[in-house]
């Protein structure tokens, strides 16, 4: 069965790149445009991994991560934060919100793919 990755990202370009990259790599890609939608899709679809953009309107990536990690049944899903070119301190904030990993934009698709594979293989 294909591994499912939830991409929470409001920008079409970035979503498209992630979609093309991950689909080509053999994953099934689920897409959410807002924080709330991301939390809801995580609850319903139970993805294997979440790529969470931090700068989202209304509910931001930190808050969405906290809400997902607050649910015991979802806690095991690895969440990788994707932030803008690091404002220092973002790393710590992401960690505090419960993110498992941290990637800064602009990211190299190649490297992102390696990180994603690392988490999924590590998780079994």
């Amino acid at each position, binding site marked *: 069965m294909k591994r499912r990755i939830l991409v929470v990202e409001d920008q079409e370009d970035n979503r498209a790149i992630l979609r*093309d990259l991950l689909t*080509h790599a053999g994953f099934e890609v689920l897409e959410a445009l807002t924080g709330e939608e991301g939390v809801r899709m995580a609850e319903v679809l139970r993805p294997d991994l979440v790529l969470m953009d931090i700068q989202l309107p209304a509910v931001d990536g930190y808050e969405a991560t906290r809400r997902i990690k607050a649910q015991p049944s979802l806690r095991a899903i690895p969440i990788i934060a994707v932030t*803008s*070119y690091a404002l*220092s301190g973002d790393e710590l904030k992401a960690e505090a919100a419960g993110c498992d990993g941290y990637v800064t934009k*602009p990211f190299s*698709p*190649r490297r992102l793919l390696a990180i994603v594979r690392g988490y999924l293989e590590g998780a079994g």
Partner: protein
Amino acid sequence: MRLRDLPIALVARTPARVQTKLLAAFLAMVVLLVALGAVGLRLLSGVNQQTEGLIKLQRKIAAYRQVQHDTTGQLYAVASALLSPNERTLEGVLRQLAQFGYDLDRLQFVAKDEIELLVEVRKEYDRFIEIVRRVVELARSGHAAEARQVQQAEAGPLADRLERLTNELVNLAEADMVAGIEASEQAYARSTWIVIGFALGSIVLALGLGYVISWSVIEPVAEIEGRLRRIAGGDFTQRARVVNRDELGSLAAGVNRMCEELGRLYEQLEAASRHKSEFLANTSHELRTPLNAILGYTELIQDGIYGEVPERIRAVLDRVQGSGRHLLGLINDVLDLSKIEAGRLVLSTNDYAVPAVVHTVVTATEALAAEKGLDLRIEIAEPLPLAHGDERRITQVLLNLVGNAIKFTEEGEIVIRVETTDDGFHIAVEDTGPGIALPDQKRIFEEFRQVDSSSTRRKGGTGLGLAIAKRIVELHGGRIWVESALGRGATFHLVLPRQAVAQRLAA
């Protein structure tokens, strides 16, 4: 308000110029001096009068004594004349009578207060003179026995009475004299106390005036001075509190107005600078978003996700990627610097191993060095303790230093040395490049400076790297500098404290 402050505040609030106040104080002191002089003179003339009175008394006493003496002399002369009455002795008695009269006149002149007593004395003397004349007449006419009888019966008792009266006069005068001396002593003591009191009063008043006036000047000057120092230090919040209604008051008001104006300008300037930094930060963020897509898609195409890529297009894609990364570097540098200037760059500190940072940097740059045929060596004096600071930022600094060394060196080697010092770590990046002239060694750490602007174009980079590196190192509480000479390579030194102390950068 303390008691001491009351007169000072009073003087300060007096609406007159400082000059006028000083003049008034000096005038007051002059008036005091004049008054002191006048009192002294008056007392002196009083003492003088007393002395004159005493001298007069003394003269009077002398005159009374003379009269007494004359009376006794007269009696004696008459007695001896009667023992051997001849013309010579009798003439002598009459001459003495004339002298007697003169002495009595002098008595009248001297004495005025004991008039009653004097009138009596005069009358008795007149009688005495009359009797003596009769005695002399009797003696001349040969009635010696009769003359002796008159003398014994009338002249003798009269002389006794006269002596008693003159004695009384002398006693009276002497009593006056004693009283006069006593009064003069008392007057002297009183004068002494008056002068001392007046002098003490003047001194206290003069000191008080001086104290009050000088403090009414010194206090506002000190207040204004303190305020100016704070303004110089960038504190525009407080006002100089000066109650004076003189030049100092208006000076303080002027300083306050200036402070307000400066504070307003400073705020505007700060706001403008903040807006500029925020604008830069936002703009560079906005610029990066589409760039992210360009770089992302380029990599996806290169990786053949959208199909096989012909060799010719692959070369073009490499150029697109290279230019994109360069543009990204520029934007990041601008963002970094604007964040630092806006005071928004906060270090996220952790324990980290310095050798790990060095190895990361070498891994990232060795390909570039190899391409130019340069040796890239590491010399680390192990074992090193862990460092505490922002590992990512320190990596960025070292990456910049090593990247520059590779960029500017055409042949030879680049050596990265790490050692511990008393207060932390010392990292040196040594190259065999063209070197940096002395005047340029400070400038290269300023924004948008490279040795010459043509090298910026030739070598790439924004010229912001070293400025950012310097700020990051200073944020850690460390130092960065360069040692170099033209033609003999350059060594960049980096000293970091073991524990990064969060520093606020001076604007």
